[in-house]
């Protein structure tokens, strides 16, 4: 990478302003094209048959009757998706999750699919497919699944990470451990110790747009996929590998996206749609219903977490430990590992130990959900921190400030921190008027901190300058939160032109080099770095063209505020040439002017936030109302502050739903009982107050503008902040998320009964 990513401390003209987003008008007028809005000539309708059983051997599938139904053009089972994964266990799991091969592993697991000329015939065909199941015992609860006597989901799984390989298989796929110091010694030094167990139920990202795609496989081996995704390049890689296609012949175009939050980083329906199209010889559109999204996409883990924290009378934490059990669905994952890494990351600890256990259950395959795994760990730790502060008689904010990590602190997950923002967020919260606002009866205030890593990754960008002096910017990171506006601001900043003269698009996989997904809060961080690099490459060409136009050496040309300047007194009579002037002559000075960049944007830098929440609880019904909510978070540099605030508010809103209402409810039969928005209640506008935000800007030393990722951290503190608020309102420590009205009433009743 021939690009210096170090922070330069420059002043900004465009970056930091708040122009209207370029995709806004299309979105509010209905012109924007989402996953289901694309159609191809001759397209068929795809539908998927799903297992009604949580755990069952598939003894036989008879598709003959469905195939004979008039209007049915293809029926597929796992046989039509042969195993081409060549020993890649993670890819095999994706294949098996897309279409069950030997066993159905959860209620909703795909077992067959059809493509027909219309939806009615496709549904009829599904009813004609006969599947002979041998139903097996199942387990959906994370704690029950970790027991020795639990039904085994995969008898080839032996717990990794133990000193000795276990003799028997288990649903616990992996044990991981982090920490330093000696927790036994630390607890011996403590004057106060808090020890609690917590549970969080499984939730879904709740994106409004269901998974949708249109696939077309041609006889010559070329193929197209239009799809709603957070990462079309990754979808191309995965689909090509699973179907035996050449990646360069599979062109994937990402649609607009109606929410993803990590849930659109994995393929489910796409390999099935491609396999149907290949068999039918026609394009196939596959759109999941809401029921299918809940039953068969990728929710987050359910968790069970034990925490123990000790402190001296002076408020110094002496030791902290946590054991975290996270459900993975029926396939191995690393979700508890992330929880174990993030749990105590906000604090300066001499003695800390976290142990994570990954647990298989008969539920859908767990997928990433915005700062995956961190919110649950933060709920358990920040609830315990609050309780410990009370035991010590200290203010909750002051206790955290006293123990907050800072530059030079060894993080609980290992390395030593560089410059970080946890202290400043806490100081800002301490000074915030929200903390001093009076509370009424049955109201409680809570606050909590959160940490997330943030990632960079492979990124490729093209910047093309038209002959009229306008700029088109092609990026490969899907725009999930306004990044086309932010990246246009960055291009305008670097080139020195007006924001209105830059138009950013998300290019398809055949138009640009590989890009990692928009995940890990990397979209704006990574693509802004690549955009700066591409713009600087374009400026080199602009200077060269200006030199030609002036007939002077290029070494005598500089670039300032969107103009080429001839340096030195000898060129005093040469007026600056604008980008537009140079572009207009490009046809005769060497042709099109463009800048390209491909890089790995590492060094994203960690991120911290602190939230404050006021809750009112009705003690008779257990109903809750969020009265006031404030987010304070470090953005490094807010490229487009309105969208940064939007990320802060969005994370808080999702966290409020997770904390108070949302949960997957399984029956004893292992079937999901609430696969729809009527019974799985996400917050709507009337449930939420205006969420106040405060952006802190502590520059990231590893980005030219100081940018940090901002998309995920905002969902880490809410579960804990809200739990602390409810606990303070009702005087009972809440230990189970969501704090739905029945659960709050049960906690109050248990307290009354002692």
């Amino acid at each position: 990478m021939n690009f210096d990513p170090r922070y330069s401390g420059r002043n900004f003209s465009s970056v930091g302003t708040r122009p209207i987003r370029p995709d806004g008008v299309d979105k509010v007028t209905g012109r924007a094209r989402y996953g289901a809005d694309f159609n191809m000539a001759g397209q068929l309708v795809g539908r998927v048959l799903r297992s009604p059983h949580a755990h069952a051997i598939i003894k036989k599938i008879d598709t003959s009757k469905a195939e004979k139904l008039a209007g049915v053009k293809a029926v597929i089972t796992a046989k039509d998706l042969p195993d081409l994964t060549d020993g890649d266990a993670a890819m095999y799991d994706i294949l098996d999750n897309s279409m069950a091969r030997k066993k159905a592993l959860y209620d909703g697991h795909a077992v067959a699919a059809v493509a027909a000329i219309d939806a009615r015939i496709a549904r009829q065909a599904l009813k004609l497919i006969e599947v002979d199941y041998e139903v097996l015992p199942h387990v959906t609860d994370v704690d029950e699944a970790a027991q020795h006597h639990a039904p085994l989901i995969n008898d080839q799984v032996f717990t990794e990470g133990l000193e000795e390989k276990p003799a028997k298989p288990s649903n616990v796929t992996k044990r991981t451990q982090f920490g330093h110091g000696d927790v036994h010694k630390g607890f011996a030094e403590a004057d106060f110790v808090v020890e609690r167990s917590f549970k969080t139920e499984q939730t879904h990202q709740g994106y409004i747009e269901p998974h949708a795609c249109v696939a077309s496989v041609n006889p010559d081996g070329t193929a197209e996929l239009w799809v709603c995704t957070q990462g079309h390049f990754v979808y191309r890689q995965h689909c090509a590998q699973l179907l035996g296609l050449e990646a360069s012949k599979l062109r994937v175009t990402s649609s607009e996206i109606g929410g993803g939050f990590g849930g659109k980083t994995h393929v489910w329906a796409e390999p099935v749609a491609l396999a149907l199209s290949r068999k039918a010889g026609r394009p196939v559109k596959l759109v999941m219903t809401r029921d299918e999204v809940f039953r068969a996409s990728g929710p987050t883990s359910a968790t069970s977490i034990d925490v123990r924290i000790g402190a001296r009378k002076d408020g110094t934490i002496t030791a902290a430990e946590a054991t975290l059990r996270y459900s993975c669905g029926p396939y191995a994952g690393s979700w508890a590992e992330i929880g174990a890494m993030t749990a105590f990351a906000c604090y300066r600890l001499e003695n800390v130990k976290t142990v994570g256990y990954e647990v298989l259950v008969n539920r859908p395959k767990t997928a990433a959900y915005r700062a995956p795994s961190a919110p649950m760990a933060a709920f358990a730790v920040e609830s315990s921190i609050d309780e410990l502060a009370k035991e010590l008689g200290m203010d909750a904010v002051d206790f955290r400030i006293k123990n907050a990590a800072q530059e030079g602190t060894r993080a609980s997950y290992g390395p030593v921190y560089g410059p970080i923002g946890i202290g400043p967020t806490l100081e800002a919260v301490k000074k915030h008027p929200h903390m001093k606002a009076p509370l009424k009866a049955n109201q409680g205030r809570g606050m909590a901190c959160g940490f997330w890593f943030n990632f960079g990754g492979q990124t490729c960008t093209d910047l093309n300058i038209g002959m009229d002096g306008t700029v088109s910017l092609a990026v490969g990171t899907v725009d999930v939160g306004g990044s086309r506006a932010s990246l246009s601001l960055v291009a305008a900043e670097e080139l020195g032109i007006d924001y209105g003269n830059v138009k950013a698009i998300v290019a398809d996989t055949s138009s640009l080099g590989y890009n990692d997904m928009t995940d890990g809060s990397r979209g704006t961080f990574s693509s802004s770095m690549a955009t700066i690099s591409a713009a600087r490459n374009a400026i080199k060409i602009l200077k060269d063209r200006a030199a030609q136009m002036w007939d002077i050496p290029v070494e005598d040309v500089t670039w300032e505020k969107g103009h080429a300047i001839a340096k030195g007194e000898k060129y005093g009579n040469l007026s600056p040439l604008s980008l537009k002037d140079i572009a207009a002559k490009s046809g005769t000075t060497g042709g099109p002017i463009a800048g390209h960049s491909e890089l790995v944007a590492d060094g994203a830098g960690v991120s911290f936030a602190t939230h404050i929440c006021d809750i009112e609880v009705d003690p008779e019904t257990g109903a809750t109302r969020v009265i006031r909510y404030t987010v304070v978070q470090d953005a490094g540099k807010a490229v487009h502050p309105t969208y940064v605030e939007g990320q802060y508010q969005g994370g808080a809103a999702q966290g409020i739903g997770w904390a108070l209402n949302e949960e997957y409810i399984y029956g004893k039969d292992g079937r999901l009982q609430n696969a729809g928005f009527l019974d799985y209640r996400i917050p709507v506008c009337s449930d939420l107050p205006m969420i106040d935000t405060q952006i802190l800007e502590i520059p990231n030393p590893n980005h030219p503008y100081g940018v940090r990722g901002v998309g995920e951290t905002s969902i880490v503190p809410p579960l804990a902040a809200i739990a602390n608020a409810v606990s303070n309102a009702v005087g009972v420590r809440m230990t189970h998320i969501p704090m739905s009205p029945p659960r709050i009433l049960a906690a109050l009743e248990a307290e009354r009964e002692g």
Partner: protein
Amino acid sequence: MVAVTLWGSLSAVAGGKAKHEIEAKDIRELFRKLAEQYPGIEPWIDRGIAVAIDGVIYRDTWGKELPEGAEIFLLPRLAGG
């Protein structure tokens, strides 16, 4: 020579040792030498390992130089949402 610390699970496949002294100029050479010494690490490298150099986490820049005396910490390569 750089001092490298492995996270708990990885140290289990590196002779049970968390701390290692290795002569390596960059991340690529570090991975190669670790794999030569402890073949059990190779599948972990294939699956993805992140490297923290003085606290800054690198996931893909295998050409990143390891400064003399820097603190090197190997971590799991994590997923984001």
